[in-house]
């Protein structure tokens, strides 16, 4: 069977995959390319997974739905993982803010934000997005919320949950057509 390439980032997904394929020792290695049977795993940053899959360098990849949506690329989404679930939410100081009205939103996800809040001005921030409303850079933030601890500790609270995010196995559409058997075998193994 021809080899396929699987892009993923180190962490829980990689652990689950390596465990499913009896290759856990690869987790301690610093290698960026690891061969597991007929699957070539490439360890990349989460934000880069869609790039590798969209360009066909990787046939499949696992990444959070937030990264997929923000990339704007189109894939087959073949499997959703039930763990590492979180939410993309609007958060701020004012629980009564009118979300239909124009406002300034600080976010790491300007593309997703524009889809849900087309009238708003978005300010892109790469990290510590919670600072933006504290320093009057924005009215609210649009960001991933897991436990909500960071928000609470900075005096912010969730105003509205917008989207649930979880890891997804994506496939390059063209790759799926010519490597379906191998990709389906990976899904079967991951489902066990």
């Amino acid at each position: 069977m021809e080899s396929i390439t699987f892009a993923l980032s180190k962490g829980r997904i990689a652990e689950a995959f390596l465990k499913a394929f009896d290759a856990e020792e690869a987790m301690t290695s610093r290698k960026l390319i690891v061969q597991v049977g007929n699957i070539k795993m490439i360890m990349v940053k989460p934000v880069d997974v869609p790039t590798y899959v969209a360009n066909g360098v990787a046939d499949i990849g696992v990444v959070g739905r937030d990264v997929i949506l923000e990339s704007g690329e189109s894939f087959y989404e073949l499997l959703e993982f039930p763990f590492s679930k979180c939410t993309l939410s609007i958060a701020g100081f004012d629980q009564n803010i009118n979300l239909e009205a124009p406002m300034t939103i600080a976010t790491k996800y300007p593309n997703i934000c524009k889809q849900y809040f087309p009238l708003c001005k978005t300010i892109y921030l790469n990290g510590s997005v919670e600072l933006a409303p504290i320093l009057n850079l924005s009215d609210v933030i649009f960001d991933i919320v897991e436990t909500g601890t960071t928000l609470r500790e900075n005096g912010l609270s969730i105003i509205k949950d917008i989207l649930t995010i979880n890891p997804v196995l994506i496939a390059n559409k063209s790759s799926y057509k010519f490597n379906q058997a191998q990709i389906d075998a990976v899904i079967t193994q991951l489902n066990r």
Partner: protein
Amino acid sequence: MKSNLLIINQNKYAMQALLMKLYAKYGYRQVSIPACESLASISELEKRYPSHTQVKFMDQSGEIFYLQNDPTVSVMKMLRLSSASNIEQKICYYAPTYKWGHRQLTEETQIGVETFGKDTLLHDLEIIVLAVKSLRLFTDKVMLDIGDVNFLETLLESMPFDSEQKQTLIKALPSKNMMTLKELTLFQNTTDETWNLLKSLFKLFGPTEIVLENAKQLIEQITFEDQSLKSKLNTLLDQITARSILLKSYELLEYTQLDFTLKPELKYYNGLVLKGFIKNCPSEVLNGGRYDQLSTEFGKANCAAGFALTLDLLMNYTEVKKMTRKNSLLLLETELTAKGIQYAEYYRQKGFEVNLRTYETEKEAIDLATKEHFEKVIVFGEVSAKVIDIRKDNVQKMPYATFDQYLTVADTNKSIH
């Protein structure tokens, strides 16, 4: 990494020539597509399909033009102005197209076919056959996804969804993932029965016979308030089945699969939708389908179908087979003489492509002929000519009296394909 632009362009032309030859065999005539069109000549109808990727510029008088980005629209405009637009037309073209992509101007060469005037099973079938054959000219690793917008829309109309839900479904279907819908408040009140229908709908892609059977079963599962919809769906499915049987007789069915979850890129498709893929190319190289609606919006109701493929993508992921140049002769002399010149001119008049060269060693000359894909090499001696057939790898030596009558264009007009 490609660095030889001359070879790239020669290969591009060779691919284009092969494709145009294929389309000519099916009665398609090549037209020239304008490189740019004035914005003023665009009707209100075209403005329904604005594209933020269009490249516009202004001339010295202030008139705005745009660089060609959709040859189908240009062909429609030609037909609108033509008095012959009500009869069947079969057109093919080769056109550079331009758009803004990734913050820079990109140029791609499109090759396409369009058929106008008839909406029959045969016309849809011909478009499908040509799409597969176009890609198979360059590789055997081909897959053509065939969808049907009409069938999908009628299926959705038969299910208990409002228009907002339908729009959301149409956006979600291409990803093959219905799990995202379960998170949406829009689908909060969806019954288990409807989720089961959706599960079947999201799986309507794959090998033709399996998908046809699954589609039939899905139709049986739906509770129809309007029986005419059920009748319409069954009729559409029968037509698709009939077309698939005919496609099998072309021995091309294995290069296609049905995908009723396909959403066309452009709004003007109604009916057949095509996306063509080749192995190792990360995106589709071919898009097409039926777009009767576009033709009507251009003022003349007309059936229209076709496809376009992106030659640049095809070039990047396939190889142009090394082709012998038909009717090509390399004439060799140790030094240039009147005899050589006369023979060269004689064979040019007969229709051959002729190169006359001097040579030092025969081996070097044959190596050159092989590298440049000449069909035959003629080495002129004192009393005889040596004819070396590069393609057949054979050598004949003959006196000039025999040689003078030996070569004819008909003799060398055998294609290796």
